[in-house]
């Protein structure tokens, strides 16, 4: 069942690096992260990779496999042919620390800029009453494992470092949407701050984020578009404008 696979893995630190070739054993049922671990144990003990749970629950092992953002632990080797060369590179949107490990501090800085859950005064713990149907909408976004692949793939910042200060990315659009939909959140103007302070208007709904989400969260349809539609009253957004025009015409 086992065979030798050809891998190209990006290796380097301090802003320099290159793809290195490896030939390595692959066994039945293995995932790309298993192969990276085998490289560490047998050929490259200092090969840097982040991982924790190896079960698709923690979002640590985000990488780009043949150019596509993927979790290493959820990418089965059986999805490749045995003669295929598999190329593994770090996430492109974030600065590389070493090998497959990137500096994702951008995401933690953006997280701090989203005002926290704000319950109304006077509701004591234990007194919250919510219906399942009302929490379910927010729960979809709370499935997020913070792999940051949505932010990695987003073309607004993927090759545009200059947009980073004004743009928080899909990860934090779903965070804002989740708070906005929370039955007890009373913070004012969630949608307006998404537009004004987090750069919602930069998004032109290419849905790349939804496509790469390992939790299958409908980031664009269920978070971004509903927020865009509702801020249109106060802010000009060319896409909503265009959408409305097309919609009217087709009537």
């Amino acid at each position, binding site marked *: 069942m086992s065979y030798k696979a050809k891998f190209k893995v990006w290796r380097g630190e301090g802003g320099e690096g290159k793809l290195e070739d490896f030939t390595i054993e692959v066994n039945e049922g293995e995932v790309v992260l298993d192969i990276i671990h085998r490289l560490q144990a047998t050929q490259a003990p200092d090969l840097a990779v982040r991982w924790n749970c190896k079960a698709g629950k923690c979002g640590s092992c985000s990488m780009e496999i043949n150019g596509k953002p993927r979790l290493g632990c959820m990418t089965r080797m059986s999805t490749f042919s045995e003669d295929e060369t598999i190329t593994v590179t770090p996430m492109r949107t974030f600065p590389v*620390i070493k090998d497959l490990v990137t500096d994702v501090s951008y995401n933690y800085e953006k997280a701090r800029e989203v005002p926290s859950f704000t319950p109304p005064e006077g509701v004591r713990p234990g007194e919250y009453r919510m219906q399942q149907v009302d929490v379910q909408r927010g729960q979809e976004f709370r499935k997020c494992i913070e792999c940051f692949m949505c932010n990695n793939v987003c073309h607004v910042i993927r090759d545009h470092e200059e947009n980073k200060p004004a743009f928080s990315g899909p990860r934090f659009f779903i965070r804002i949407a989740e708070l906005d939909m929370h039955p007890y959140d009373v913070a004012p103007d969630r949608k307006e701050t998404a537009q004004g302070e987090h750069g919602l208007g930069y998004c032109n709904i290419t849905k790349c984020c939804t496509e790469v989400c390992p939790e299958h969260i409908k980031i664009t349809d269920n978070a971004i578009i509903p927020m865009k539609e509702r801020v249109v009253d106060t802010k000009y957004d060319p896409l909503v404008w265009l959408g409305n025009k097309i919609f009217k015409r087709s009537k």
Partner: protein
Amino acid sequence: MEIERHEYDVIVIGAGGAGLRAAIEARQQGKRTAIVCKSLFGKAHTVMAEGGAAAAMGNVNSDDNWMVHFRDTMRGGKFLNNWRMAELHAKEAPDRVWELEAWGALFDRTKDGKISQRNFGGHEYPRLAHVGDRTGLELIRTLQQRVVALQQEDYETHGDYEAYIKVFQECTITRLLKDGDRISGGFGYWRESGNFVLFDAPAVVLATGGIGKSYVVTSNSWEYTGDGHALALLAGANLINMEFIQFHPTGMVWPPSVRGILVTESVRGDGGVLRNSEGERFMFNYVPDVFKDKYATSEEEGDRWYTDQANNRRPPELLPRDEVARAINAEVKAGRGSPQGGVYLDVSTRLPAEEIKRRLPSMHHQFKELADVDITAEPMQVGPTCHYIMGGIEVDADSGAASVPGLFAAGEVSGGMHGSNRLGGNSLSDLLVFGRRAGAGAAAYLDGLPARPKVDQVQVDAARAEAEAPLQRAGENPYEVHQELQRTMNELVGIIRKAEEVSEALEVVEKLKERVQLVGAAGTRIYNPGWHLALDLRNMVLVSECVARAALLRQESRGGHTRDDFPGMRPEWRQKLLACSTEDGTSITIEEKAQPAMRDDLISLFDRDELSKYLTDEEMAEFDRIAKS
């Protein structure tokens, strides 16, 4: 090179549920707090908890209360639990869960809008607050977001997010520092740069989780290398109950690369059943005497229980985890296992496909993606996996204080709460209850501290030399040493133990100690996993020795410690705790300590018949005296 230095009131090592809850408490009590964790913030092993947090809120069955929860916990732990911890836990868990809701957590709901609660092994009533089967993620994210909320408050007040609480992520502590008897700080390195860092702090809360990475088949992540257990030992604290390791009955068994990954107990709580290769629901054959009157004796009764709990007894698939794990092990050994060496766990014939996907979304996803198995259409193959260590740092129940002044511990790294076996769902609630208590304990300790302990440069230099050593020698590959340790513990100190095998493991561990001294790490200091593993090995070997030595001494079978050569519980052993310590930092000595007797009002919560299965004759005479008065 000058070492980066930080001064804090409290450093919390570990950023899982216990660590974050401790840090939140310390900060809320006005202490400057550092959270130091090996991984990124929000990635801790707590995210993998699936089933829920046990808290007797009584939302689904109003007969539930703290006394029922206390009894279930003591029973689950085979009465070896620190009863004061079990009491505090049962009393305070509801408040801790409700508090999360006020911080933004979105639990699943009952029809009347309260937090929903699900059935779980060993819990008499539906008790686990949950979010589908990803409760741990909800818990960690809520606590992470609470930390951020406090940072936002500090930004408003002080203009600095990190004025009172700062996360040092991807930073590993390798030594605790002391001034005389007292804690004075910690020494570690940044994974990213390999540079060293010194924390000058009079209080340290250890919340580093468990030790599963000393085993081959484990549900634990790479971080579970027993760091906190080892740091505490090296600082002079005791570890208790180290022989008790929980093998979760249902880990994945195939494909090989995912062997050990957890299959949540919720599958059984929601109706899933265990069958052997002959199609038999074998758990009916494995109900031990102590639980005979609490579990169904026929499939029909067990099945009726899901809809009518008042008039039926629960199915034996919901026995405590140690019982189920041993039963699966026995079925496989008897040749009635599945092709890949497990047994069948089937929910596909028990619930409609849509219901399975709604209640168990992450299990559905996990089997589909990793094993090509659709759990709505076919059974899963499952087998025991090393999941949790009941043993840990001996602490004061109320404050989380270890015997070393200034040292506190909470969560899996602490010992006592769960006795010889933890009930599912009691871990997430443990983290919250004792995380908060350890944070408060550290704050109170600081308030009573006459003078700030000083960092001793000699200790810093020694810690630095120890940490640098693997980089400076061309030694053995640390991955090979790690694999041999894992194989040894898995095969010789696993779910079923024998004196000869455990003795053999101890001989291997002795040799591994020497090899650990000689491992080398190739490459630079920057994000070098080989070097990090070389340093973690010291902890894994030290803790493995504790497990093996205690396992050899305890001549009975109880909870997470099963001796083939000493089957059955022995009441005189229930009164004994085995406390591990080290004098020289490399070898472990064990001392027997007496288990304190339960407070009168607590022991009176149990029936005489039940107690007589666990207690010695003298203890029963004492119980009769209490009952009379």
